[in-house]
């Protein structure tokens, strides 16, 4: 757990103050934001499907996903409602591995969840070793409140892009605004440029 005492330096040489994006405050708790009832998806009925823009697709069952190479990212996360949380510990599969399941040259991707939630991203943001499908938080299976059995983890963007209860990725040639992006939130959501709302630069 990160200490907030002065002088503490976290990962690398950056202080926690330097790791806090503009307009954010640090929290030790893990607030739950919801836009609907919490879905409970048993892992024996869970699957994750990646679909290319030409209709080809690839699916993984829970056991197949767990058999893929696992990574343990430790990252800072930033919510558009202004809380940030340092050094969160996760376990899951790099989206590079899953995205490689289909042939695609699309510029965009839509993450789709079991509850109907969607969020849109450039394809470049789900590849390059900076985005994951995660199933564990802090050493424990991810709870339904936090998006379990599995959610996206895309820590370089505001946390609404890290879709909870995610069931797949769909590559698209056109950018398709998702659930919050259609209702006033920024299309991209870079916390370091404070891209909270639709018209932020």
């Amino acid at each position, binding site marked *: 757990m990160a200490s907030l005492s002065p002088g503490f330096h976290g990962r690398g040489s950056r202080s926690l103050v330097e790791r806090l994006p*503009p*307009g*954010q*405050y640090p929290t030790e708790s893990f607030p*739950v*934001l*919801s*836009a*609907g*009832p*919490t*879905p*409970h*998806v048993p892992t024996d*009925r869970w699957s994750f499907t990646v679909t290319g823009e030409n209709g080809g697709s690839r699916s993984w069952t829970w056991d197949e996903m767990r058999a893929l190479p696992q990574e343990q990212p430790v990252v800072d996360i930033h919510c*558009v*409602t*202004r809380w940030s949380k340092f050094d969160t510990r996760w376990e899951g599969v790099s989206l590079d591995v899953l995205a490689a399941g289909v042939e695609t040259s699309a510029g965009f991707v839509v993450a789709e969840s*079991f*509850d*109907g939630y969607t969020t849109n991203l450039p394809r470049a943001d789900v590849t390059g070793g900076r985005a994951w499908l995660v199933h564990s938080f802090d050493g424990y299976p991810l709870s*339904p409140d936090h998006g379990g059995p599995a959610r996206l983890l895309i820590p370089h963007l505001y946390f*609404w892009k890290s879709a909870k209860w995610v069931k797949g990725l769909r590559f698209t040639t056109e950018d398709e*605004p998702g659930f*919050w992006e*259609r*209702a*006033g*939130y920024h299309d991209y959501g870079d916390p370091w440029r*404070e891209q*909270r*709302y*639709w018209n932020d630069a």
Partner: protein
Amino acid sequence: MNQHPAHHLDGNCLAGPLAQVFALDPTTAWWTCPDCRTASPVGGLHVYGPEPGLTGRCPGCAQLALRVVTHPGHLWLQLGTGRGAFRFPLPPSPSWSPSDRTGEP
């Protein structure tokens, strides 16, 4: 897929935000769910939020009924499951001073 009914707010919490847009009391308006046909006043919706926005859902099947998102200077209103949202300009409010945008005291 099972769903928890828990953690929703009372639909009457929409009264304040929607009063900025509607001339009549919006919580008394009736809405019939296009999916399960449950009829409910807006005040009877199950509302999730308040952040990142107020999401009003059918008390019978959780279908999306409306969304209200309030940002500095704007109120966004989406009715039903449609993809378009209406953006209303809000009058300047002291609670949304420029300093709120930057997090400065």
